[in-house]
Each structure stands twice: as structure tokens, then as C-alpha cells.
């Protein structure tokens, strides 16, 4: 594990000879609409940007890439006037630009779709879409706005399920994101930056959004697309700019000239494979779970979550933003005493009424947002490190001294400089250092269970791999580790098993060795946005008097997303969330055959038709299967295939 590069230049830092980074090259292209040069920005001593460049021109979709915490969002916010830059130049339409507020940027024609939405929860969808108009002089035309908003929602494919009069607070995370997008579209700006717009969207909604973005490009707009999802970048962008640790390491490279591994190398500065080394071998049989959660309920975010966590295991909790993952682990930790359902800790009923009770029962919790949920800004680093100890401590005094020896050990283990323990504030530390101190805070208590919510958010790549190493080490010593993450690569690389959540429900618990990012993405897609597909399954099962399922079918396994059974005799032998091998199902022959016609099972006589489905842009969306009981006349396969195709062509 290296943290500094002896040569001075980190590997993967491409020289201008390979990728054009100087102005003259750019000038041979059509003139840039916006050009950002050498942008710098610091927060409390931490450099978020240290010389970032970004150039956007009309008729293009330009990807802005980087790992978590690389500075993508900061750069976008500088360009759109949400943040004032410390240094560097911004040129827009040939003139210098220094937006002092988002308002000024909007007036100039620059809009942004924010990652953490900037909406007013008490106002209606319509009011939110035209929120920026409120800052403009002149009267608003209610009727025009209403018509325009309806058009935009229609374009996004949500005219029928998103009412303009709904209050925003009643919407799901995905719906809010769509309103945020509609808001930017309503401004009719020349330049729009989309900051991770897909983080809470289902694949179908992503498709629609991409179509809209492509249409905007063809109309001559300049579009920035911030993401760390590579498949989206390849599917959508024309050119990419990569930033790493606040610096641009590749500027305006044609997307077509890159491949995935080159892009990863640019983003992280090294091969990513190295981070997820020493993958766990899944033990055949675990003993009794140390933590058992059954039907956890915490409206409105969590409706039904069950999971089992074992000693020495790293369990992942995956899902899209807004799926209820954070609320789930916070409820386990006693932050919501009113949560429904049952929990057992070491076989004994467990219902913590406060974090203190959870801590004393041996649970540690590293929350998602360090700044608001973990760090006490007015405490020294040492006292911050001791904070959970103070929470668990029963005496009147502090009891710091008794812990000091262990603190010294942890500082060595985590590679933290001991002399910085007495620093006045943690806010001057890098995100990685802060996270290590927070991890040390909990390791100090030697918990039986350690829960981490987005443990590598805003953490540099070097610290990231050392955090993974620490988690593996404590798991090897018997600690049960539960990791929440929206980074699917991280979940698959780090965890042995992944519990997938969608719309507040746990829908599958799958060994990560069987998963890849694509399967996980399909599993995690919000059920609410799949309504049409589920209707289709119900219709197929009922009309033909059998069963229907939606699943990902790979070489020898089925990953079932949903099953509807009308006739018990036609049960394919797997339900939603199950991942059986072909021979473990009742329709093994049909799954193996991959035929375009019905296939009859030799033993049971069940007849099944399995139809592969793709999105209009060619994305694999798994397979739809129809299973009929023995002795029934087979309907025409072509008719069923056509019916399925219609639904998926008009996807969501």
C-alpha cells in the first residue's frame, strides 16, 4: 500500500503528449462555450480543487469524472455560482465570468442539476420547477408555467404519475430527482451541468433522462455530465475530463478513444484491482447470527427489512440513494426508538431505545455524514477519538487515562501521526484522516458489531484501501461488519454477502461472488418505477393460467427480480430475491436451453418460455419468463414475445 509516489508524478497522470491539455489544441476545435482554467478552492485548509480545468462547447455532452471526493461537485458548483473560487479563470462566451451567486449564473444561461436536491419541501412540484423564476422581475404567468411544466414532465416520461400539485415532501427520492431535473430544463439554459443525476433513478428512468440529454445536445446545448458510473459515461458522453484530488489529469478526451480500464486508471491513479485484494472465501456454513433483524419498519423510508449478520462476516447493504439504507442501520443503532419489527442480538431480543444502549450492547456506528453526524468541531482530535468511549463510560469522571494505551495502539494501526492528537480541530484534516479518527473512535470500544454508512465517502483512494484492510482485519478477528454503500463496486469487492434494498424493502441477500454491478443495479432498481413490468408479469400469469417471472439469467444461475404465480402447479421454484442454480429450480431445462420457443421439462412437464429483454438503447434488462403447468395447450410464443417487447420499448 503506497500513499506517495516517489517519482513525483503519480502513475496514470498522462502527459500532454498523450492527451491534449494545452490551449492550442483546444483552439483548433470549435470555440468553447465555457472554459475553466486552474480553478482552486479550499475549505478550511483542505484543498478541494488545486488547478482544475474544464472546457465545454455546444453540441456536446461532456463527462466530468473522478472518484468520490475528487472535486467534481466542487468544480461544478464554482462554475454555476454556488461557490466562489479562490483562484483561476472562468471564461463564458468569450467573456470572463465571475458569478457571485447561482442567480447570476442562471441569468447568464448556466444551470445545474444538483446532487443533493435544492428543492423546497413544502411547495408543490409546479412551484419547485419554477422556483428560479421567483427571483426574476416581472409577473409570472401561472397558466404558461403549468403548461410548460407538464410538457417537461411528459418529456421525462412522468406526465401521468407525477402530479404538478403534489407537495414535494411526499415524493420519493427518485421523483425528487426528476423534479430537480425538470427545474433545470425549465430554465432553458445554454449550459447545464448534471451532477450525478442518476444516483437515485431506476434504469428505465435513466434511459429517459439520457434521451432528453441527447435531444438537448442535438439542439446545440452544452451539457456537463458528472458521474462516477463508467457505463453511463461510455453510453452518453462525447468527451470526458477526469479530475483526481482536485486536479485535471485528462482534459477533453474523446470518449471513444478510451477504454474502461484506462479511465479507471485516470480516475484513481492506479489499477483498481489492487484495492480489493484478498477477497474473502465464503465459509460454507456460519453459526447462529449475532444480529438478526426481522421486518424492520420505520415509515416512510423503511417498510420491511430483514437481515442476518454473522460473526467475522462483512455484510453489505446496497441500494440506490433513497432506498432507506441509512435509516435501516440508524434504527438498528437505536437512533429511532419507535421502529417496528424485531431484532435479536446473540439470540436475545434487542430493542435499543438510544444509541447508548446499542453501544453498551457492543454495536459501533460510523454515520454517513462526518461533518454533521460524527465530528465535534470544538473538540481536539483526542477528545473526538474518545467520544464514543465517553458515551459508553459509566463513571462521573472522564476515564480517558485508562484508554490511552489502546489509543496509542490504534494510532499506530491506523497510521495516524500521534502528535496531531492534540490538534484543536479535526476540520483541518483530509476526509481520509477524519474517517480514520472516527473509525478509531469505535474500534477503541472493541465492538462486536461495527456498522459503517458510506465508509469511503469523500475519502482519498490511498486511505480507502487502508480502511478496507482494517475492516478485513477486524472481521478476521470475529467482529461482524455491516457496510452501507451506494458504490456497488465497493460492495462487491469488500463484502461476502450483499443485502439489496429497494424502496424500503430488503429484496435479496446474495453472496457477492455471484454478483456484478449490472445485476446489482437491476436488483436495486426502485420497485415503484417498475410498476409496468410487474403489471406485465401479473397479466401474463393470469391470462395463460401459469406463472411469470422477471430474472437475470446467467450461465448457470437465475437472479430473480420478481415472480407472480397464478397456478401453484406452475411455480418455477424461485421467488423475488432468490438466486438458485438452474438445477435447483423446477424449470432447469428451459433456463439451460435459451430457446425462442416453449421448452418442456422432461421430469415435471412444465412448459416455459424465456424471453430476453433489452432497453431501447440496448441495455440488458434481464429476462421475462412464462411458466405453464403440464397438460395445457401452449399459446403462441411469438405473441407473448411481442407483448413483452411492447412494454419494454415504451419502458417506464
Amino acid at each position, binding site marked *: 500500500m503506497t500513499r506517495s509516489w516517489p517519482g513525483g508524478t503519480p502513475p496514470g497522470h498522462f502527459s500532454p503528449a498523450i492527451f491534449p491539455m494545452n490551449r492550442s489544441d483546444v483552439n483548433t476545435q470549435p470555440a468553447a462555450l465555457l472554459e475553466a482554467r486552474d480553478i482552486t478552492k479550499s475549505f478550511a485548509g483542505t484543498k478541494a480543487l488545486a488547478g482544475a480545468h474544464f472546457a465545454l462547447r455546444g453540441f456536446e455532452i461532456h463527462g466530468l469524472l473522478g472518484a468520490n471526493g475528487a472535486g467534481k461537485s466542487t468544480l461544478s458548483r464554482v462554475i454555476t455560482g454556488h461557490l466562489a473560487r479562490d483562484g483561476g479563470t472562468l471564461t463564458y462566451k468569450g467573456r470572463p465570468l465571475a458569478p457571485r451567486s447561482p442567480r447570476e449564473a442562471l441569468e447568464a444561461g448556466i444551470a445545474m442539476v444538483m446532487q443533493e436536491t435544492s428543492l423546497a419541501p413544502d411547495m408543490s412540484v409546479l412551484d419547485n420547477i419554477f422556483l428560479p423564476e421567483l427571483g426574476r422581475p416581472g409577473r409570472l404567468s401561472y397558466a404558461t408555467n403549468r403548461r410548460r411544466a407538464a410538457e417537461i414532465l411528459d418529456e421525462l416520461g412522468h406526465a401521468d404519475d407525477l402530479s404538478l400539485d403534489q407537495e414535494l415532501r411526499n415524493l420519493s427520492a427518485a421523483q425528487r430527482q426528476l423534479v430537480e431535473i425538470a427545474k433545470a430544463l425549465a430554465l432553458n439554459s445554454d449550459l447545464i451541468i448534471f451532477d450525478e443525476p442518476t444516483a437515485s433513478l431506476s434504469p428505465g428512468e435513466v434511459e429517459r433522462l439520457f434521451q432528453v440529454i441527447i435531444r438537448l445536445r442535438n439542439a446545440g446545448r452544452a451539457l456537463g455530465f458528472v458521474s462516477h458510473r463508467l457505463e453511463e459515461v461510455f453510453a452518453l458522453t462525447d468527451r470526458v475530463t477526469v479530475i483526481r484530488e482536485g486536479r485535471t489529469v485528462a482534459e477533453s478526451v474523446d470518449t471513444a478513444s478510451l477504454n474502461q480500464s484506462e479511465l479507471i486508471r485516470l480516475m484513481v491513479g492506479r489499477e483498481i484491482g489492487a484495492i480489493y485484494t484478498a477477497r474473502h472465501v465464503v465459509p460454507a456454513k456460519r453459526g447462529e447470527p449475532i444480529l438478526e433483524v426481522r421486518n424492520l419498519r420505520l415509515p416512510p423510508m423503511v417498510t420491511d427489512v430483514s437481515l442476518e449478520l454473522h460473526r467475522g462476516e462483512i455484510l453489505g447493504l446496497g441500494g440506490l440513494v433513497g432506498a432507506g439504507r441509512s435509516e435501516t442501520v440508524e434504527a438498528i443503532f437505536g437512533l429511532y426508538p419507535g421502529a417496528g419489527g424485531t431484532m435479536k442480538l446473540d439470540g436475545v431480543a434487542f430493542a435499543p431505545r438510544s444509541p447508548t444502549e446499542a453501544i453498551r450492547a457492543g454495536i459501533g456506528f460510523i454515520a454517513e455524514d462526518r461533518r454533521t453526524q460524527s465530528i465535534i468541531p470544538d473538540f481536539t482530535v483526542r477528545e473526538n477519538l474518545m467520544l*464514543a468511549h465517553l458515551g459508553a463510560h459509566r463513571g*462521573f469522571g472522564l476515564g480517558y487515562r485508562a484508554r490511552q494505551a489502546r489509543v496509542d495502539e490504534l494510532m499506530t494501526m491506523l497510521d495516524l501521526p500521534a502528535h496531531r492528537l492534540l490538534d484543536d480541530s479535526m476540520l483541518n484534516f483530509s476526509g481520509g484522516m477524519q474517517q480514520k479518527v472516527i473509525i478509531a473512535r469505535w474500534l477503541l470500544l472493541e465492538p462486536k458489531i461495527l456498522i459503517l454508512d458510506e465508509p469511503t465517502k469523500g475519502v482519498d483512494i490511498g486511505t480507502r484501501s487502508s480502511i478496507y484492510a482494517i475492516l478485513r482485519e477486524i472481521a478476521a478477528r470475529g467482529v461482524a461488519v455491516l457496510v452501507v454503500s451506494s458504490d456497488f463496486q465497493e460492495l462487491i469487492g469488500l463484502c461476502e454477502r450483499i443485502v439489496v434494498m429497494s424502496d424500503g424493502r430488503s429484496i435479496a441477500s446474495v453472496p457477492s461472488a455471484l454478483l456484478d454491478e449490472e445485476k446489482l443495479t437491476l436488483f436495486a432498481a426502485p420497485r415503484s418505477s417498475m410498476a409496468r413490468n410487474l403489471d406485465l408479469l401479473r397479466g401474463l400469469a393470469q391470462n395463460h393460467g401459469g406463472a411469470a417471472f422477471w430474472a437475470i439469467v446467467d450461465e448457470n444461475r437465475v437472479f430473480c427480480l420478481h415472480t407472480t404465480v397464478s397456478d401453484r402447479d406452475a411455480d418455477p421454484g424461485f421467488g423475488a430475491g432468490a438466486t438458485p442454480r438452474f438445477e435447483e429450480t423446477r424449470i432447469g431445462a428451459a433456463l439451460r436451453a435459451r430457446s425462442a420457443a416453449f421448452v418442456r421439462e422432461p421430469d415435471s412437464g412444465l412448459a416455459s418460455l424465456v424471453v430476453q429483454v433489452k432497453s431501447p438503447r440496448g441495455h440488458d434488462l434481464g429476462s421475462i419468463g412464462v411458466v405453464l403447468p403440464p397438460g395445457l395447450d401452449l399459446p403462441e410464443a411469438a405473441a407473448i414475445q411481442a407483448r413483452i417487447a411492447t412494454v419494454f420499448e415504451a419502458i417506464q
Partner: protein
Amino acid sequence: MTQVAGNRAAGEGRFPAVAKRLTGRLEVRMLGLALLIALSLSILSPYFLTTNNLLNLLDQSVVVGIVAIGMSFVILTGGIDLSVGSVAGLTGVVLGLALQRFDIPVSILLAVLSGGAIGLFSGVLIGGFGLASFVVTLGVMAIGRSLAYIFSGQTSITNIPPALNDLVYTTVFGVQTNVITLLALYAIAYLYLTHTKGGRTVYAIGSNREAARTAGLNVLFYSILPYVISGALSAVAVTLLSSQILSIDPLAGNGLELDAIAAVVIGGASLYGGRGTIIGTLIGVFIMVMIRNGLNLMGVSPFWQGSAIGGVIIAAVFAERLLSGDRMRR
């Protein structure tokens, strides 16, 4: 803003480490300010730097000083207690009425308990139900003063046992007991805030309540406790005041809340919570009392004293802002 940050970064290198560590400590800076004021006053008035006047200064610090301890606890959690003055008035009346029937110790105990009970009432509404401290204590302020008038029958209670005088005028090594009480309370508060779980929890709540809760600290209990302490100490303060003048007025402690808040703020505490020290508060009390005393010695009209104190408060906070250069907090 960027300008200031740049200057600061440049200046840091030149500062010798020791000096930086010292000026980096808020109490040291405030002590410097206090000494500066003392120096100017002793130049301006020949009477300022006399033993008598200095003992007098301490004596004048007692009431506001004791109330400022409770106020520090409350402000450290990010709250404010506007009710201290009227709680002092009301508990004074409780003391006066109790003295008609009970012994002195029992009466004092009753007064302090009633002060604590009023604090508990405010604290539960604020810490337990999440009401705004400003509003709750504003209400309690009005209720307290009104009850003080009702219970006292709108007049001063003057038939107080003279023995109560001993509470103040007994001297140890030439120092009055009320001053000793003041210093002892400050010592206890200092030790509590720096060396106990409860004290650190008070700071943690003010600095980041959510993080304190997530780390398992008892946020509910320690959000309420400061108001109880504040109420009880208001009663202690009014007890010492009554002992000194052997008369209890329902109007006692009028405006005390502003003096106490001013002392805490001059002492460098942040009204957002989490930042400030009890030593700083004591220095803040001394600064306020010195200015008032000095202006009296120089014969400045009492009507100008408000302007002087107000000016010092604003100047102190402004200087603190520039010196600490901390713009991260909201």
C-alpha cells in the same frame, strides 16, 4: 474573506510558536484585555488601584458572577436563559417568605430548590420537547416576575433575621465569604466542565448535538441540566444579595440576564454553543464590573454606563472574530 485568510496564513509562519499558543488561547487574550482596562483605569483614577477598591470590585462581582456560571452552562449547550433575573426575583421572595417560618439553612435550601425547579421546567420544555430556549425562557421571565410581585404583595420584605448578614460579612483572611463562595463556585464549575463526563457532554451538545447523540452521550439529560443549574444559581445569587442588604425586593435581579449574557460573551463564548470557558466568563464578569466601577470613580453619569458596556461587548466580540479568524461555523 479570502483576503483575511491569506493574511493569516502569511502571518502564521512569523509568529513564534509559544506566543501563538498563548494568543491562541481565548482566556489569555481576554485576560490581556482585562489587564489593559485595569491599567487604563488606574491611570485615569487614583482610587482605582487601592486594596479597598479591589475588594469592592470582587464584592460587586458576586451576584452577576454567580448567575454567569449558570448562563455559561446554558450558552455552552447552544441555548440562552433570559429568565435568570426574574428567577432571582422570585426565589428571593421565596427566601423572604420562608424566613418568616423556617431557619436560615432551610429557607436557603427552599429558595435554591425552587430555583432549580423553575430551571427544570424550562429545561424539560427546551431539551425534552425541543422548544426554542429563547422563547421558553422569555415566557418564564415574564411569569417569574409576575409571581414575585404577587407573592411579595408588591412590597419589599424587610423583616429579615440580621443573622443572615453573617453569610456575607464573615471574613476569612480578610476576604468576605460571598467572594469566597463566588471563587469556590467557579472552581467547581471549572473542574466539572473540564474533567467530568457531564461537563464534556455539555460542550459536545453545543458543538454538534447530532454527533453527541450518535456517540451515545446522554443528550437529553445534559440539555436539561444547565437550566436547572442556572435556576439554582440565580437563587444562590439572590440569597447573597439579600443577606448583604437585609431586604428583599420583588424587583431584585431586574436586567441581570443581560449582564450575565454580556459577561459570558465578553468571556469569549459562542452563542452557537460548544465554545467558551468558565475562566473566560469570570474574566468577562471582571471586565464588566471594572468598567462600571471605573466610570463611577471618574464620576461619569450612570446614563452613559450602558453605552460604555454595550460598546465593550460589541468590540470584544468583534475583536474575537478577527483574532480567531474562524469563519467555518454557521
